[in-house]
């Protein structure tokens, strides 16, 4: 092998990832963000530190002292908000998001049992991976992120026929439909879904995403909006819930996704 010892690699490579490391820790960020109330704080810490094996008993204890909706919003959701901040700051990564979300969902399920009629959802999203496309990891991650942001998700799975998507939308009336595709030949299903929805007079935003999809394609057909990556999905959903239609989302897209 050629001797490379002593070669100046500074002219070859810059390790931006090493240089950009965040010196903060989960503990230091949590200190600034966790609720002051000791009961809510304890619940939030279960989510923050992904303790899915013990979140049940901790939430059960909290429910003896606090109202279930408060345990959810001031404890579990507060913990998830810290997790989201840690993720945005590159201190936590995807596995932590997934485990924290799982922990939060266990806690929410317990607390919800004590709320007559269940907890109010922010809205229903129908998700699928395109017909002929078996790749759905991005959809699955986005589904977790939507659920942990308070949305209800109907996950239709992968390789879902165009007509099945349309039928589900007609039946369940979501405020947002999402589709993912890894291949350019399967993403063509999205304009077909959109066309059939328009023909039925349904004006629901259809989010097109996935490796093959770009913003230009997603905005090339009526109803189409774009998401580049899973973490962008909840803020886009939030904007739609606040009243933006698909045309407005296109207009505001850069502002909505910001630095995500």
């Amino acid at each position, binding site marked *: 092998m050629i001797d*490379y010892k002593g070669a100046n690699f500074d002219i070859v490579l810059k390790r931006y990832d090493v240089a950009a490391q965040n010196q903060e820790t989960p503990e230091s960020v949590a200190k600034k963000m966790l609720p002051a109330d000791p009961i809510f704080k304890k619940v939030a810490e279960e989510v923050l530190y992904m303790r899915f094996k013990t979140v049940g008993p901790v939430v059960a204890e909290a429910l003896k002292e606090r109202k279930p909706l408060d345990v959810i919003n001031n404890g579990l959701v507060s913990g998830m908000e810290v997790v989201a901040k840690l993720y945005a700051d590159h201190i936590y990564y995807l*596995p932590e998001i997934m*485990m924290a979300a799982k922990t939060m969902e266990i806690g929410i399920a317990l607390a919800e049992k004590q709320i007559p009629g269940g907890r109010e959802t922010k809205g229903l999203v129908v998700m699928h991976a395109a017909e002929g496309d078996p790749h759905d*990891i991005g959809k699955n991650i986005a589904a977790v992120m939507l659920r942990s942001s308070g949305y209800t998700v109907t996950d239709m799975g992968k*390789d879902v026929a165009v007509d099945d998507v349309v039928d589900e939308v007609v039946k369940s009336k979501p405020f947002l439909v999402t589709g993912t595709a890894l291949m350019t030949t399967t993403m063509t299903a999205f304009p077909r879904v959109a066309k059939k929805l328009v023909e039925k007079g349904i004006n629901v935003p259809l989010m097109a995403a996935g490796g093959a999809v770009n913003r230009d394609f997603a905005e090339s057909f009526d109803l189409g909006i774009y998401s580049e990556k899973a973490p962008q999905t909840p803020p886009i959903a939030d904007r739609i819930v606040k009243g933006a239609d698909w045309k407005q989302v296109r207009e505001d897209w850069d502002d909505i996704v910001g630095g995500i």
Partner: protein
Amino acid sequence: MAAKRFTKQAYASADEMVFGSSKSPVSYGFGIKAGAGRVIPELNYGPRPGSEKDPARLKKEYVDYISKDAILRAVTLGFPDLQLETEWVSQMGQTKMAQPVVEGQKAICEKYHEEYGINLAVRHTVPDQREAEEGIRVGMNGKHAYPEALFNAAEVACENGADVLSCETMGGKELSDYATTNGDIVAFLFGVGYLGSMDMEYVWSEFCNICKKNKVIAGGDTNCAGANTSMFMAGGFLDNDVQRTYSAVTRAISAARTMVANECGATGPDKDCGYEGPIIKSITGMPAAQEGKNCQCAHADLQGNLMAQVCDLWSNESVEYHPEFGGSSVQCWLGALGYEVSLMNTAAACGKDKELRDLYMISDRFRGPEGHILAYDNAYEIGKAIAAEGNNIYLRAKAAGLTAAKIIKRSNDAKELQLTAKQADVLADMIKQLEALPSEEDKFVEYCVKQYKDVPNFCMKNYGL
């Protein structure tokens, strides 16, 4: 045919490995000789959206536009060899869509081989659309009958003109997706290293029978569904959803799985997107197709130069057919590919191939842990660990992962390979987890079946268990 396990490496030392030469060259198509002393450019492409609507349009796209454009550009630039790779779009699962394309590409290769003497061949990579929830073995009565469609596609390809058959099989994906999103290396080992190896044996035993019957080269596979998913999610320096130390270890594990195709009779060249290729080549000695710097049309990665180090075919991964200033996209990317191959072959012709190999490798050796473990000396070390446990698919996959993890740690400790604190934490945790696993296969399986019983769509029946 039962898999014949590799328990020794084909090469006596890492330094023996070089691009363009393999221990077991393979000849096929119209004059192509893979691994026989020179690197072959392999061009892959995707049809424009909409061309999949009917058989005539699809054939025209693949044959009259893509293949013709590429071959004529190769002749224009004086390239002696060209391998085309058609990765079937899902619609080609229907025979009426696939057959005209396969026949047409064979015919156009023959025409231009006769006209100009250019060496040509076509690799057909059939789509694996099997879904764990429907059952991934023949006769499991899934709604779409995807296992039956997979083998039918292989028959259609081989009966109608394929020179090389390949596939990107999906066995174990339900677990590898779970593993990667949750950062669980043991789940990846179980899904890809163990169950994935079983599925490879199931699929490739039949593929090799089909190839033998039709006198077609059984090329090989790739763990695109597993290790590439983790590599792409780990991304570059602005991404980091998945740690690159995790991604590197999944790559090593995937080598123990992808080489099962060769153990079932595949002779190579294996699939370009199998970045595990250098490890596998060190064991099998068979020609390896690879991709890197010249596949930026499809994706970016952190080992663009390094991956050329020991390749036998050099690929662009895939480019959608569309116009560029310099011609069609396939012509432009073939130009980039072909000139890179020309540089490699010039180095070989001048006796400087090992120097160029080293320069390719050194340029990316410290760009990240994924490339680091694939540097040919490290790949050879991982190959050695796999071969030492060659008869046991669990132990060899575990050995691959653990060896890769320890190589990264060693280089980080020596202050050669930089890691972020998070990458280092994840690495330490993986070493701890892998070292804690039992040395008995049955205990490992018992543990994993219990541990991962709730992973969506996981079903042992899919693996004949």
